[in-house]
């Protein structure tokens, strides 16, 4: 079976992700690529280190693709996330979504990266000149105090109804 959602330790080629979503019904492909930025809030990153709970992360990436298919219909999605040590400008994540028309492609790929930052068990460790830190998603701090992020809680409630 073709694998459209995966975690890798190898450098990511955007073309590989894009190739997985090309099809005759598609007229538009939107991709998103997250690359390692040198400066964040004035602080210089030397490199990043990513860790993943690999089998669950791949399941959650696939779930995001499924959510996109349900929300926008007629989509094809592929997502890859890299782990290990990444230097400046290396690709951490690449997403491609193909749709018949362009509006859906943009919306869906933006949705994908937003969801990755919410529910996919992958972590980033910053390596600066003066130290290191595992980064948590600041936006979710409040929700996490209740045990899990609000977005996941909602989802679990929906799941119960099914």
């Amino acid at each position, binding site marked *: 079976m073709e694998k459209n959602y995966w975690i890798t330790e190898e450098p990511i080629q955007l073309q590989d992700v894009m190739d997985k979503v090309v099809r005759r019904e598609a007229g538009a492909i939107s991709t998103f690529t997250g690359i390692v930025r040198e400066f964040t809030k004035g602080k210089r990153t030397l490199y990043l280190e990513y860790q993943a709970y690999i089998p669950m992360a791949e399941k959650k990436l696939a779930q995001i693709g499924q959510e996109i298919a349900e929300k926008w219909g007629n989509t094809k999605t592929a997502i890859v*996330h890299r782990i290990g040590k990444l230097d400046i400008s290396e690709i951490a994540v690449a997403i491609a979504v193909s749709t018949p028309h362009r509006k859906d492609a943009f919306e869906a790929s933006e949705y994908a990266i937003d969801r990755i*930052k919410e529910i996919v068990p992958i972590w980033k460790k910053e390596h600066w000149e003066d130290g290191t830190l595992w980064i948590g998603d600041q936006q979710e701090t409040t929700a996490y105090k209740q045990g899990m992020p609000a977005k996941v809680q909602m989802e*679990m409630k929906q799941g119960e109804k099914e």
Partner: protein
Amino acid sequence: MVEVLFFAELRDVVGKDKLTVAADGMTITELKEKWLTSYGVEKFNVAMVAINEEYAPDDTLVKAGDVIAFIPPVSGG
């Protein structure tokens, strides 16, 4: 017995990537109290829990053979 996995900061805190503990029939909350308080509760309380690779609430009962993962706030992308 259940397997307990740690990631990111929690892995550093615990000093290993997994533990095998006797927790059959406990809730996640009970498992934390029994086996993890020595590592500091705060960081475990801000983590999500996944059982067998699916997010689960803290009152879920764990059973023999389950894989419990503590998932600190994620920061992929």
